[in-house]
């Protein structure tokens, strides 16, 4: 177990290293921030540019800048925004909870829909209900998430005027973004639940549970569901990356004050410290969750460790 843990952690550290190095390097390639910062500032001399570069630490060699970035990472200091000079950590600490709150509510919506539907499909395998669910899940995989978001806004904000079209303000504002991402996730999850359930339903303890006369709902929800919980939690955990990626897009439609909105504003304003920080934080989150899922799975199922 110790060697398995060590191996997985080393792999994760390596991935973090490569991602942060690539992102820092790539962002330096996008152009001279000093030039962009001074645009529209009237006459700018070469001396002014040199001063800006000096102030931003851009004269240091790349490796030194990267090292500063890594040191900052450990103490949660991402430098200051090029625009307005706000502390990047402050911006992140405001946006991150908004994104995470949306991620968890989407996950909840998806679990609430996909578990009963997936079980229903597995129990009725090959019958009409199964086929309808299968087609619906294919449909769910066939349109862009932002289009669903726009259609929800059209119906519930513009036509019916039930829900706020944008922003984060209380429970009502969560409904449309969470349902959008929840539905997209459900399209994949229904199939996962169905497959996991079909496998479990073949087990002997299910036959025993049925033979001793338990009600069908007890067999399904108490015995079968519990036993396929481990693979399902793994799948759901590994979806985290895709979920965050989707949320970044959805935030744009709903003007959600999260990391996605922060990232797009940073791209538009060439605000590299912010962009670098957002990408780093999101990748760290994803790598971290994947690592936890792997370790948890290794703890529960010893066969995984030796792979």
């Amino acid at each position: 177990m110790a060697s398995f843990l060590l191996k997985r952690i080393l792999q994760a550290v390596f991935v973090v290293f490569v991602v942060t190095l690539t992102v820092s390097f790539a962002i330096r390639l996008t152009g001279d921030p000093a030039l962009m910062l001074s645009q529209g500032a009237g006459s700018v001399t070469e001396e002014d540019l040199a001063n800006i570069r000096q102030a931003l630490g851009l004269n240091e060699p790349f490796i030194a800048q990267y090292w500063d970035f890594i040191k900052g990472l450990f103490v949660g200091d991402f430098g200051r925004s090029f625009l307005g000079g706000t502390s990047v950590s402050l911006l992140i600490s405001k946006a991150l909870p908004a994104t995470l709150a949306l991620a968890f509510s989407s996950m909840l919506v998806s679990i609430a829909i996909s578990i009963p539907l997936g079980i229903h499909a597995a129990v009725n395998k090959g019958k009409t209900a199964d086929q309808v669910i299968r087609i619906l899940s294919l449909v769910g995989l066939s349109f862009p998430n932002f289009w669903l978001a726009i259609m929800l806004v059209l119906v519930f904000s513009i036509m019916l005027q039930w829900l706020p079209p944008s922003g984060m303000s209380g429970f009502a504002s969560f409904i449309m973004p969470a349902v959008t991402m929840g539905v997209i996730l459900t399209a994949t999850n229904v199939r996962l639940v169905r497959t996991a359930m079909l496998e479990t339903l073949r087990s002997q303890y299910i036959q025993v549970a049925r033979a001793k006369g338990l009600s069908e709902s007890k067999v399904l929800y108490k015995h079968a569901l519990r036993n396929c919980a481990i693979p399902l939690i793994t799948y759901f955990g590994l979806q985290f990356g895709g979920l965050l990626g989707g949320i970044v897009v959805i935030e744009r439609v709903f003007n959600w004050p999260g990391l996605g909105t922060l990232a797009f504003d940073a791209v538009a304003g060439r605000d590299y410290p912010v962009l670098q920080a957002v990408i780093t934080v999101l990748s760290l989150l994803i790598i971290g969750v994947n690592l936890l899922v792997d370790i948890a799975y290794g703890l529960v199922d010893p066969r995984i460790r030796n792979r």
Partner: protein
Amino acid sequence: MAQAVSRLRHFKNIEFILGILLAGTMTLLVLLSPLLFPDGGEQINLTARLTKPFTDWAHILGTDPLGRDVLARVITGGKISLLVGFTSVAGAVVVGVVMGLISGYYRGFWDMLVMRFADVQLALPFILLAITFIAIVGGGITNTIILLIVSQWVQYARLVRGSVLSLNDREFIHAAKAIGVPDFKILFQHLLPNLAGPVIVLMTLNVATNILLESSLTFLGLGVDPTIPSWGGMLADGRTYLQNAWWVSVFPGLAILFTVLGLNLLGDWLRDLLDPTGRTET
């Protein structure tokens, strides 16, 4: 049981027919768009602006705030999606299959390099890669295609590598090695044909995914130039006048849905066709 199986077969046929019908019709319409709509939906006609759909035969799907025909723009805009979808998959297949063959066949350092690289890419969601990439090189059709190739080849490399690892120990590969067939021939003549099936399935589903990704990028202003009609661009446009012209946002989305659903149905059908063992299982 027999009845269930026959019903399943029947369903599989419906899946195929529906898939061909949706994807085929959309592709055909898009390919014929220069003949059907010679002006490419660019004609501005302010007297006919904001025509509602299904009220005027000249503009069945209505017009946008500049009086441009929505149907013409939707069909013409499909060219971008199909072009990006198909070329990016073709590129990713070539890169991914070659990388997968080499890393699965030779193993060792090369294999480790490719697989670690794949790990890194899997940890980075597409949209983050896209933001970084587009911030560096800028948007446009070519860059969008390159970005999709860069982000998608890994899937093919992993798939091919896995199959090669299991094929390496089969007798026909041992035999080919024993009689001195050059590596190049073993890779492309003996290994490649044996893993074509799953690669083709992945390709079909991947065209669908890439059409969705391109539309997302363009919607966010990171992909194709917004002045060229494209589905993602039209949706970004339509969002600003959602209040008074819902149809401008609805129809490009439906076009994406029909095309991608058709491809997904075909991919699903192909997968079951090429992998009969999975037919009754999942």
